[in-house]
């Protein structure tokens, strides 16, 4: 009986101490972890790009109030967007912006850095493409064009 009681007490004290140390945060600087994604791989000009992610510790715990710095560079190496957002209670963050109509087509790279006083920064990047969709008149002309090419091919073959 006393042996079992001792085991219970030791187990409880271990839990108590672990939680205390975690909350006190007196250990050396912990490293932030950063996961980032965009909601699509290909966007049209003028479409909203959503960059989201999670700032966490190595044990998966979300980090609130981390500063998330974002810089988006286009295929011409020009900067097209910058932002500073804050992570929420669960470490999540979101930045939304609309690509300008005049933005060049091609590959865009978003560089992201998560930082918070008392922690080591984390960095990541994500890529997406901007490719305009075919406009309706273009789509309507496509079958006509294909039929014309086919007709010319058939005629020439008969000749």
């Amino acid at each position, binding site marked *: 009986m006393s042996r079992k009681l001792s085991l219970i007490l030791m*187990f409880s004290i271990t*839990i108590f101490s672990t939680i*205390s140390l975690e909350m006190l*945060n007196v250990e050396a600087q912990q490293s932030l972890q950063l996961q980032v994604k965009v909601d699509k791989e290909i966007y049209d000009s003028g479409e909203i790009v959503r960059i989201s992610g999670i700032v966490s510790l190595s044990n998966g715990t979300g980090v609130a109030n981390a500063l998330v710095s974002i810089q988006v560079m286009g295929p011409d190496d020009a900067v097209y967007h*910058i932002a500073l957002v804050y992570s929420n209670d669960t470490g999540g963050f979101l930045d939304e912006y*609309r690509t300008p109509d005049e933005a060049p087509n091609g590959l865009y790279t978003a*560089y992201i850095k998560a930082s*918070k*006083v008392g922690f080591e*920064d984390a960095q990541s990047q994500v890529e997406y493409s901007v490719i305009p969709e075919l406009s309706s008149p273009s789509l309507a002309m496509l079958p006509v064009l294909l039929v014309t090419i086919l007709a010319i091919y058939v005629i020439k073959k008969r000749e």
Partner: protein
Amino acid sequence: MNIRPCKPIGVLLLTLILTSLAVASINPKPSSAFKGMGDNQAPKFKLEAKPVIRNCRAGDAVKFDIKVKEDEGDEASKERREGELVFLRVEGLPLEWISQLSPRVGRTDFRSKLTIRTAAESPPGTYNITVVGVSFGGSRSHTVVSVVVEQPGEPGSKEPYNYGLELAIRTYRAVYRAGEEVELMGSLSTDFGLPIFNATIYLFVINPVGRLIHFNSTRTDNLGTFYDSFKLTEEKEGIKPLNGTYVIYATAIYEKKMLRTHTTFIVEYPSYPSIQIDSIVTLNSLGNETKSIYRQGEPMKIKVVITNYGIALNSSVVWVELQAPNRIPIKVMLTIVPINPGESKELTFDFKIPLNAEPGIYYVRVFVSDKPISTGGRFIAMASESFIVET
């Protein structure tokens, strides 16, 4: 072996009790709501408007120069090395009128340009608008300007603007010592400086090792202002306040909208980069006059003043992103500037409003980073200003 069914429950209860004790012993107590409300101290500064009256047609815009200067009779101001930090607000603006104070915050003595756009449907008459300055401790001063609408305008000639909200927070000083009281003040307003009343504000203060040392919730007053203070006392277990850079986060919640911002202060010496964007002012093409309303195709200048309260930055980057009314970024400009501790820098950016620019509210968002994010940098400070583009 007899196993009593209540034993696992006993272990669980004991663990829960000990866990609760651990959490309760470490969580800082939130202060009571409404703590830190301004106690309306005697004003330490004065406001002067020039001119005090302007005439116009309904739908037109008028401008006033607002001078904010220290009260010469205030003894404390004579001893103070830094000027008084003052937030400016506008009260009594008629419906569908818009106003722009540029800048909206500054340290005495400084000047601000007040631009008022009247509504086309405003009936002729005299309209009195109050400009209020608010400082730490609830110190307030005001001045009144009058707009005389002489003729009716063209109804419906101007589209109503969809404006956003702006949250700002500052500490009374940039550097403190252990044992001192840190006072902070903030404001929530529209892009045009109209105060937001009764918004919920949450404040978190983090020490240099990332530990939460202070938490408070409060509400904005009738001028959209909120206050708080806390003492840099010994932390638990006899640990003195750490030297280094502290971060204050503010979250505002109003009508299902949430805004966040932050500021920093230092105890003894900085441990982290810390930049304050003191002002963002939009100017005419010559850079000699504050301007808030522009036309399509018009060139403009943007003046930014920053101060370094942290460690030296050899190649800090000041960025300016311009956003169109639908928040599309239309231009990103940047300049690299070394800046030492205690130093202030004034930077000017040139921009030409596109000929096909959509009329509405445009935003100037200024960021400062220690280096480009693409090469491992991070944004240290952010602030924004707005201006209007018309056809």
